[in-house]
């Protein structure tokens, strides 16, 4: 792109969309230890539902709600058999599920345009008379308001007794079930919420980019999202978003880097190779990610103030 | 001549020391027994020798060489054989293959018939999968597997646990035979009296500490052995 500002804005929009994917994976993996390697599949589903519905002239709000609904239902359905599996089996199932879904989309031209994909997807907000740059800014506003909503939902989820149970499942499933929690039920719920968020991200992506095809949803997408969570810090929602920014930034930078240095490298290859090396390095030297999980009582809970008082009163009673 | 000398060993897993301040000597060509009720840390002593635990302090000297913290593979190559209490055979391999893997470190070729002289019971089972053996047979195979490498020191972890009295007698007589071949044995057992029959020396462990030790006769004569053993007297 010629205009560097446009390039930057585009990167910011991408980071926002991937930020949603990243916090949804963080909810699944970081808090509940569900290794979902099928992120790209749900992302793709959301995008395609939006694209198809947009072709039928439905407004974005309907499309995105439908995307959320269908991806969450499919998420719940696939999780029924998959979540009883061990981590590695779950990973294999989810990664291959993504491939099968792509297969369907590539082959069913009547439904999803086959390998050519779908173009002309209407964007969510159309205000007549805006320049391209202004439209981009409107898009960013939309994406980031949804990102912020998702962030708060995730923060809310993990900072309730419900979130505490998710962490218990992550730490030790047997303890969770011995202390009366139906582990399977919680896993399904988390998977459903995670899938819904991925679907929403896909929906945003489709309306933002306008044209989609199956090749945009290669397993690299899943990997990039994993990269964001692992780099940013599992079990830290801010970390996940930070990770999204960093990975997007690194990818864009490597493209610029290539342009300016005139490296004889294809930008996509450079990007992927660099991301792969980075993720391996992070796993080696900082497996807990850049922002560590904060192990502390929740923010803003009145108890923080009460607890020391409680101690005082107790010791006072004992003394008297 | 001491083949094994453990001094002031404190070891365990992760952050929990299971055994504390254990001192054990095994003389060349003798059988030493580690006795104690469950949870007393007998297995942990053997696992520490074999390099499977975290050692907090103390030293282990084998054949004049300090082996504290050495890798399991290296220890096996130095002539220490180990029979764990559970999972002590390769279940998916046949009896013959188990023996061949046991002989992995041997430079010279193994003649299966050599070991079958000591364990004639295994002769007819050679081509059976270890998984299909009965408990007694499997225990014999486990010991045979450990012996084919021609070890200098054999570590046995509760070889008679969950065996019938008949099989227990067979296993114990094998241990006697092993000793007669000049191999030193360190055996962890709950079965006190039967073990003392075959051992030269014994250490009684309760709750991770050695509460008494001495020659087998001394231990047997101890009137309070029963109460001592249950940790009721110190």
């Amino acid at each position, binding site marked *: 792109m010629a205009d560097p500002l446009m390039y930057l804005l585009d990167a910011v929009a991408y980071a926002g969309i991937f930020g949603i994917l990243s916090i949804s994976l963080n909810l699944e993996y970081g808090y509940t230890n569900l290794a979902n390697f099928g992120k790209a599949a749900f992302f793709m589903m959301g995008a395609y539902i939006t694209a198809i519905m947009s072709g039928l002239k439905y407004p974005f709000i309907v499309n995105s709600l439908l995307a959320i609904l269908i991806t969450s239902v499919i998420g719940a359905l696939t999780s029924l058999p998959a979540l009883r599996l061990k981590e*590695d089996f779950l990973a294999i199932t989810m990664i291959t599920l993504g491939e099968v879904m792509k297969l369907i989309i590539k082959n069913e031209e009547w439904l999803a345009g086959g390998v050519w994909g779908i173009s002309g997807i209407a964007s969510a907000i159309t205000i007549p008379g805006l320049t391209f740059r202004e439209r981009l800014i409107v898009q960013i506003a939309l994406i980031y308001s949804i990102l912020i909503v998702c962030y708060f939902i995730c923060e809310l989820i993990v900072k309730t007794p419900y979130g505490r149970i998710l962490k218990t499942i992550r730490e030790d499933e047997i303890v969770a079930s011995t202390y009366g929690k139906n582990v399977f039920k919680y896993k399904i719920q988390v998977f459903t919420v995670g899938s819904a968020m991925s679907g929403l991200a896909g929906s945003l992506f489709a309306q933002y980019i306008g044209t989609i095809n199956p090749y945009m949803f290669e397993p690299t997408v899943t990997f990039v999202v994993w990269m964001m969570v692992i780099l940013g810090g599992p079990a830290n929602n801010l970390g996940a978003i930070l990770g999204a920014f960093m990975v997007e930034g690194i990818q864009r930078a490597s493209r610029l880097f290539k342009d300016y240095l005139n490296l004889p490298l294809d930008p996509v*290859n450079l990007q992927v190779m660099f991301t792969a090396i980075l993720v391996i390095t992070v*796993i080696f030297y900082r497996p807990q990610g850049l922002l560590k999980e904060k192990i502390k009582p929740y923010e803003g809970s009145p108890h923080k103030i009460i607890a020391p008082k409680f101690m005082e009163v107790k010791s006072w009673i004992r003394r008297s | 001549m001491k083949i094994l000398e453990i001094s002031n060993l404190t070891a365990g897993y992760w952050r929990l020391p299971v055994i504390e301040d254990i001192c054990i000597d095994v003389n060349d060509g003798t059988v030493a027994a580690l006795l104690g009720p469950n949870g007393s840390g007998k297995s942990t002593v053997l696992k520490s020798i074999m390099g499977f635990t975290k050692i907090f302090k103390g030293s282990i000297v084998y054949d004049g060489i300090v082996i504290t913290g050495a890798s399991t593979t290296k220890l096996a190559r130095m002539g220490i054989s180990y029979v764990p209490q559970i999972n002590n055979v390769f279940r998916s391999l046949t009896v013959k293959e188990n023996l061949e893997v046991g002989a992995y470190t041997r430079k010279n070729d193994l003649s299966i018939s050599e070991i079958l002289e000591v364990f004639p019971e295994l002769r007819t089972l050679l081509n059976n999968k270890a998984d299909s053996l009965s408990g007694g047979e499997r225990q014999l195979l486990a010991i045979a597997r450990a012996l084919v490498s021609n070890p200098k020191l054999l570590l046995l972890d509760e070889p008679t646990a969950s065996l019938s009295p008949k099989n227990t007698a067979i296993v114990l007589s094998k241990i006697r035979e092993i000793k007669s071949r000049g191999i030193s044995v360190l055996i962890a057992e709950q079965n006190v009296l039967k073990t003392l029959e075959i051992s030269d020396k014994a250490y009684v462990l309760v709750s991770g500490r050695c509460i008494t030790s001495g020659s087998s006769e001394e231990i047997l004569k101890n009137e309070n052995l029963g109460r001592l053993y249950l940790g009721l007297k110190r």
Partner: protein
Amino acid sequence: MINWLQVLTNSIIWGCMYMLATVGLSLSYGLSRFPNFAHAEYITFGAYMAFLFLVMLNLDIYLAVGLAVSLSAFIGGLSYLLLFKPLKSRGASLVHLMVSSIGLGFLIRHFLMQTFGGGIKSFRIVWPTISIGPIVTTPLLLAILIVALVIAFMLHILLTKTKLGKAIRATADNPELAAASGIDLNKVSLFTWSLGAALAGFSGIFLAMRSSLVPLLGWKVLLQTFAITLLGGIGSFYGVLIASFILGLSENVGVVILTWLGLSADYRSAIAFIILVATLILKPEGLMAVARRRV
């Protein structure tokens, strides 16, 4: 009229190809206890190396294949030595191992794309067709059949008759006891990883020669390799043998049915997915599960 004999022949040949592609994955999974997603890229790597030596450098075919296979083995061994072994010794979690293996896979694939370009390549060998009775085949397919059978037989000898092979099986069965028997786990793992990658590379050459060479060559059979690994039981060589032929047969019969139903033959990979999911639900330990007895 469907020539069922032809379908059977195709099934066997596909089974052979899948067997070569999968053996390494299954063995390394059984030994190191995590699925190596980079395995698919060993397949691609072998094919590109063969392309390099055979088409670009114009070497003799046997020499070219030999070099390509050895280089695949080298890559497999290297990835164990430089990546997975240190990660395991640092106590990396299963998820971290899987993510790194995916990362390694992308690294290899995009390295190849960078070096050779992303386009479709061809070995430019035209295979004449041979008719044996009602069966039509090519020398390449016959070669695949023969090579796979020879390799399967050699693997059988390796695993059951040699000291090293028994050590591999023993380690997969019970690593602690294997170490206590004096087996050097690192050496055994290194060998297994290299061998597995070499066979994957071999299968890649065949896959590419049969159709064409693309960067996604290996990834396209990822689904099949995992279905076979799980169906056969992780770490079981004979399981892989049987499962490969089951999959080969179901795919080829499936294609016949798909065409009959008027669906795209591309859906053949979905058959592998169905087998995979069915295995995981009905019998997660696989047909011949022995290697993985974790209590």
